[in-house]
Structure formats: C-alpha cells, structure tokens
C-alpha cells in the first residue's frame, strides 16, 4: 500500500505536467491540474493510512 500511495502521488504530478504541456485552453488546463492535485490527495491519504497502522513503539 505504501508503494501504491507514492505511485499515486507521482501519477498526480504527471497529470499536472501533462495538463500544462498538452492543454492550451485555461479552463481545461485548470480542471486537469486540479484533477491531478486530487489524485495526489488520494495518494497522500493512502500514504498516511499505510503508515498509521503501527501502534506503539518500534524497535
């Protein structure tokens, strides 16, 4: 789940880059940039969830 979460983060960023490069109209570009940010938010939530299953001290 950790790997998937970070892959989602990267995927969201790639979506943002693609939106900048490929979409000329401001509306579509803005929409896809925010979509990429939403994918990142999902990845971040998953990363937090995958790290919060540990209870008590490690070591």
């Amino acid at each position, binding site marked *: 789940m950790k790997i998937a979460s*970070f892959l989602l*983060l*990267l995927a*969201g*960023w*790639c979506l*943002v880059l693609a939106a*900048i*490069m*490929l979409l000329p109209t*401001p509306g579509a*570009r*803005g929409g896809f*940039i*925010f979509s*990429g*940010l939403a994918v*990142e938010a999902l*990845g*971040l939530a998953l*990363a*937090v969830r995958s*790290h*919060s299953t*540990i*209870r*008590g*001290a*490690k*070591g």
Partner: protein
Amino acid sequence: MPMPALAETAAVGCLLFILLIPLAAVGLALINTGLGRSRSAAHLMMSSLCALAVAALVYFGFGFAWQGFIGRGAHVLLLRGKEWNWIAAEPFFFRGLTLDTSLPSLASLQQIFCVILACLIPLGSGADRWRLRAICCSTAILAGITYPVFAHWVWGGGWLAQLGANYRVGYGFVDTAGSGVIQVVGGLSALAVTWILGPRRGKYSEDGMAPAIPGHNGVLVLLGCLLALPGWFGLNAAGAMLFTGAEVGRAVLIAVNTLLCACAAALTAAVITGYRFGKPDASLSANGWVGGLVASSAGCAFVVPAEAVIIGSIAGGLVTLSVGWFELNLEVDDPGGAVSVHAVGGLWGLLAVGLFARFPSPVQNVASGFPGAASATASGQLLAQVVGVATLLGFVLPLTYGLNLLLNRFCAFRVAVEGERQGMDLYELGAGAYPEFVTHTDEFIPH
C-alpha cells in the same frame, strides 16, 4: 534572461539582510531543543550543529552546482517546442563564482543559509530517537539533492518559474523567500523521517491513547521564536531582492508584513488553545508564531499589511489545529511540530500568493524574466501556485521519502531501545545536557 545587477548600496543592504538569516537557524535549533525531552537536549543541539556543518559543506560541494542562478548555465529539455529547464550546470565547489557583491555570489551565500534552515527542520520531528550519524547522512541528501533540484526549478530559472513565460500561467510559480523551497521541502522531509522512524516508545498505546510527551523547556522555545524574527526579516528581504528584483526600500513593507503575519498567527494560536483547553498553550502559540513566519515568506513583498494579518491568522489556525490532528488522528509523532508548522504553514503561504498578491511593475518573478503584467491574471497566478504545490506533494515528497528509506537500509535511522530509554544524550554523546538537575525515573526499570 540574466537579472540586472544590484547597485552598490542595494548590494550592501542585501548582504546585511543575508547575514541576519543565521538567527532564524538559531531560533529553530532552540525551538527544536525546547520541544524535545531533557534527556535528548544536548543531542538535539549537537545534531543542529552537525546538520548545519554537513549542509553547508555538501551545498558548497555540489548543491549550488545543481541549483545555479538565473541566466547561467543549465540543462534544458525541449518538449513540444518549449524549454523545460530542469537542473543547473554550474561547476562544483563554487568554482564558477567570483564571491563578490554580484547577484550570483550573494545568492550563493543566501542559499547556504537557506539550505541550513531546511535541514534543521526535520530534526524537530525526529527528536528523541533519530541517530546522529543518520541525521548527518539524511542532511547530506537533503542539501545535495532534494533542495537544490527544487530550488533550481523555482529560483534558478527553472521550469516552475518559467510557467508564466512558456505557458502564460500567471507570472510563473512565485516563492519570494522560501515558503515552498525551504519550509515545505523541510516539512515534507520531516514527514518522511517521522514515517520511517516511527513514533517514540510509549507514545501510542494499544488502547488508542496518545499521552502527551511535553517539551522540557518552554523558555528555550519562546526565546527561539523571538530570535527567529530578525532572522526571518533578513530571509524575506534578501529573497525578495535576489529573486523578485525588489528594490531595497521595499524591505520596510516586507518587515512589516513579516512581523504582522507572525503576530496574528501567534495570537490566533493562543486564542484557539485558550478556548479549547481553558488556558493558552505556550508551545502551540510558539508553533503558531513560527507558522506565521513561514507563511509570510512566499508573498511578503506583494501583499498589503492588512492581508498579511489575514494570512497570519489563517496560518496560526491551521498550524494549531493540524498539530493535534497529525498527532491524534494520523499517528504522526512529531515532537517539534515540524510537519504542521513548516509543511502546512508553507503550503498555505504559497496558496496565499495566488489569492492575495499583486505584482506591481517592475517587481515580478525575475526568475522567469517574464514581464507580462498585462496578460497575467489572478486566477492564472493561483493556478501557478497550485502547480508548485502539486510538485511539492507529487515529486518532492516521494523523492525525499524514497531517498531516506534507501538510506535507512544502510544507516539505521532509529536508535536502539536502550538508547531511547536512557536518552540520546547519554547513549550517543556519553554526557547529559543537565547533569546536575535531571533525575530520570524509568530508564533503568526493566520492561
């Protein structure tokens, strides 16, 4: 497009501002130490000193070579007819610099101090359990790879700053004095370190309770806040002059905005904690103060003082609420509040530029050489800031987490159980910070 050189008076003024920045580092070190436990106080200060030294040396060695400065050599990708400047091509060991009052030389000095600041941030989150050797190695990674790459994209004429020139996205990503480059990068590194280290022993129990482990010295924390203020004056003013072409007289507005932002944030934190807990909390108010400083850095040269108060108030609220949320709901054990203060505060500061900032000519994003005041719109600027935020979360966080996770395989981050019980001072340094005054009760009790 190279930047115009500073007049001699302005160059001297910029140099004086740069020389104030170490005070911010002193402040951060004191805050981190005060919020940690007494049994690890000397270790935290020693770690701050070592992190400072490692960061400066690594950045001198090859950090600046990859960060560079506007208008100087860089590696560029050509994608669909647009140039994507992704990394600098400076010589290593400052060999391409004359080290005088020229802009690149002033920027190199300022950047050494800025990378030190960024490297001190994760120490607060790893307090009481992060080994000194691992701290040094992680600092080398942050100062040599993570920080310079992102800083080049923002301040070195890289693709983030060029968004306005290449794609008409506002003025390009604007970060005057490092809310993103320094604070969010440091805060996200702190998050990665916290995840890799895990929580302190006894922090989270099986039944879901999370007892507070308070800091040992509130005086150090609050003194650190006061010392950080002049440091931040220097940080914000120097950043504005070097990376947005602000004239030296604008430093008055920058100082006023910085101060008002911090004050509003601290008071907001005090009011919120007073309402929630019946009494204002000193450490959370201190976190709020620093959160206000952090949020002020991105747009300090481009907002009016009333807007700085609003930005600071929101920063104070966000930091105060997120500290508890991270600790209790997300199980992120962050003794120094580094993630909340620097990552959350910094992200808000970046977005606030898109919401509030105005860019009067000739002040602009000089990093892009883009004078397009007529075509840049408020919504375009907000979009540019969002792209920067997305880059921080989608690239910098995975990069710093991956590099630190790899490092952990070769140089264990976490101290042994015995070390955590005794305290980092005794276990790693052989001597405590307060040998005459501190009595521990639990480190020799077998569990």
